C-alpha cells in the first residue's frame, strides 16, 4: 500500500495486509500523535489495511510558544 507521511512530506510503500497499530509501530509513530486516514475515512487502530489501500498518516501535533 502507498502510505503518505508529513513533516517532511513523503510517500512510502508498505506491504499489506497490516493492522493500523502495526503500521504505526513499524514506522515508529504513536497513535496519540497521529490520525490514520484511508481514502477519505478515518480508521481505528484495529483496522486491517490492504495492499491496494491509499493511506495517509497525518500528524496532529502543532507547536509554537
Amino acid at each position, binding site marked *: 500500500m502507498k502510505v503518505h507521511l*508529513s*513533516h517532511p512530506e513523503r510517500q512510502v510503500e508498505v506491504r499489506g495486509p497490516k493492522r493500523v497499530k502495526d503500521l504505526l509501530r513499524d514506522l515508529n509513530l*504513536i*497513535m*496519540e*500523535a*497521529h*490520525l490514520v*486516514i484511508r481514502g477519505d*475515512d*478515518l*480508521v*481505528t*487502530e*484495529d*483496522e486491517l489495511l490492504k495492499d491496494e489501500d491509499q493511506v495517509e498518516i*497525518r*500528524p*496532529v*501535533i*502543532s*507547536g*509554537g*510558544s
Partner: protein
Amino acid sequence: MNCKKCTIKAVIGLPRHNAAFCKACFNEFVLEQVTRAIKGERMFGRDDRILVAVSGGKDSLALWDILLKLGYKADALYVDLGIPGYSTKSREKAQRFADGVARTHEAKLLIHKVEEEEGAGIRELADLIHRPTCSTCGTIKRYQFNRAAVEQHYDVMATGHNLDDEASRLLGNVLHWQEEYLDKQGPSLPASVEGFAKKVKPLYRLSEREVAAYSVLNRIDYIVDECPMAKGSKMLLYKDVLNRLETESPGTKQAFYCGFLEKQARAPRQGSGQAQPAPASMAEKDRATLHPCATCSQPTTAEICSYCKMMARAKAGSTR
C-alpha cells in the same frame, strides 16, 4: 472496533475514555465536551459576542465551527504575521472557511496584517529585536487579539487551545517552577482590568488528536503543514513526552491538567476566613499591578507594554 453508543463501526478509539465512536456519536461527544467547558467555566452566554482567534489550523477552525453549530454569535480574527509562504496559505484556509461555512451563520472574518501595521513581518521583527520567533509571535498575537476584542466591543475572546496545549504548557511551567505563570493557566481568564478582554479556551477538555479528528470528519480544510518557525520549539518536545506517557497510561494528560485546575479551584483566597494568609486572586493581582501603557493604553505592569517596547526596538533597529 464498534461505536460504544450505537454499536456501528467506529471511526475513532478514545483510550482515555475507554470508548470508541462512529462519526455521529463522536461529533455529539465533541459538542458535549465543549458545552461542558463553556458552562462549567462560565465562559459566555447565548447573547455574548465572541471573537475567535483563528490561524487557519485545525484547532481554531474547529472551534469556530463548533461555536457556530452550538448557535453562538462568533466572529473571527486572523492575524497575518507575514511568514513567507505559510501566512498566505493559512490565511486562505481561514478565508475559505469564512466564505463556505461562517457566512451561512452570518459570522464574519476580520484580518489584520502585521506587515501593513508595523512595516515588517514576524521573522524580520524577531531578527531586529533578537528574540525567538515563537515568543515574538506570541506577544504580537496576544496584543492584536486583545486590542481587536476590546476596541470592537466583543464580550469575550476565544482561542483554540486544546488539552495538549494546556498540559504541555503546564509541564513547561512546572519543570522550570514558573509559579507566577500558573495563575494564567486556567481555561477562563476574566477581564480583570479596563483594556483586558475576557479570554476563554473552550477546547481544553479535548485532546489535540480529538480536535484533529473532528476537523477531518467534518471536512474542515485546515493547514496541515507545521509553522516553519516552530521547528525545535520546546512545546513540541513537551507534547511528545506527554503523548508517550499517554500511550502507556491513557488519561495522563487529562489527570495532569484537570487535577491542576481542581487544586487551583480549592486553593484558599483572601478574605475566605482562613487562618493562614492566602494568595490574592488573579483579578486582584492584576488590579494591583496593571495600569495603561503610556504609548497605547493597553494594560501593562511596566510604563510601556511589551508590544510597544518591541515595536520601538524594531523601528530603532531598522533605521540603524
